C-alpha cells in the first residue's frame, strides 16, 4: 500500500513539475489534470470518497474542460 502511495505521489509531483516546464499550454493543462486525478485517488485512499468524487468531477473534468476552452480562444503557447 505504502509503495503504491509513494509511486502515486512521485508521479503527481512529476506531473506538477511538468506543468511548470511545458511551454505548450495544452500539455501543461493536461499535466495539471493528471495532478488532480491522482489527488482524487489519494483522497480515496485517505477515506474521503465525497471529496474524491468532487475532485474528479469538478477538479479534474470540468476545470480541464474550461481550461481547454479558454486556451482554444487564447494563445496555445507560453510567451
Amino acid at each position: 500500500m505504502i509503495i503504491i502511495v509513494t509511486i502515486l505521489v512521485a508521479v503527481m509531483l512529476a506531473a506538477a513539475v511538468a506543468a511548470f516546464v511545458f511551454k505548450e499550454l495544452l500539455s501543461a493543462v493536461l499535466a495539471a489534470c493528471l495532478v488532480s486525478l491522482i489527488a482524487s485517488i489519494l483522497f480515496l485512499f485517505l477515506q474521503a470518497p465525497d471529496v474524491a468524487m468532487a475532485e474528479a468531477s469538478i477538479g479534474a473534468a470540468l476545470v480541464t474542460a474550461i481550461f481547454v476552452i479558454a486556451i482554444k480562444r487564447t494563445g496555445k503557447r507560453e510567451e
Partner: protein
Amino acid sequence: MRTTVSIVLLAVVILGFGLSLLDVPFAERKSQIGDYYIVNGRDQTGATNIVTSVVLDYRGFDTLGEITVLFVAALGLGAVMAAAGGRRERPSTTEPPSLVLRTGTNVLFPLLILFGVYIFVHGHLTPGGGFQGGAIIASAFLLVYLCCRERRINLARKTAADSLGGIVFVGLGLVGLAVGSRYFLSDFLPKGSLDTLFSAGMIPIIYIAIGIKVGAELAGVIDDLLEETE
C-alpha cells in the same frame, strides 16, 4: 532573477511550514469535534453520510456561503464576458457533427442528467451530493456543446433554476428561524427513519436545490466561456 528570488522566498515559507507540521502528527485524532459529529450525527441530523450532515447541518452556513461564491463567480464571469457586447448567436461548427457523435450525445445526455440527479438525491446516504451531482449535470451540457456548438441553453430557464435554488436554501433557513427551535438554518422537518431515501429532514431538499443550482451555474460558465468563438 525573479525565479531565484521566488525560490528563496518559497524555501523560507516551506521550511517554516514543514517545521510546524511536526506538531501535526499524521494519522492521529486531532479533534473532539469530529468525534462528536460521528457519534451524534445520525441522531441529530438523520443522515448516514456524516460528511453530508456536517456540510448541510452543522456547517450549513458555510455551504450557503459556498453556493454564494459560485453564484458570484458565475455572475461575474457573465458580466466580464458581456461587458463589450451583448449575447450573440454562436456560429455552428464548420462541419456538421458526425452521426456517431450526435447519436452518442443524444443517448448519453439523459443518462448523465439522470446520474447527476441520482448522486444529489442520495447525498445523505452515499458519497456525493449537490456539488458532485451538479458538476455531472454540467458535464452533460458540456457534451452537448462539444457536439453541437450552436445549441444554447435557455437563458431565462437557467437564470430561474439558478435563482430558485438559492431562494429555496435561504427560504428554508428563514422558515427554520420562524418555527421550531428558532435558529437560522435549523432543521425543522421530521428526520424519518435512518438509511431511507425520505429521511434526514431538509438535507435532501437542500441538496436537490444545490444540485440544480450548481448544474445551472456550471453549465452557464461553460456557455459564457464559449461565447463568440471565432
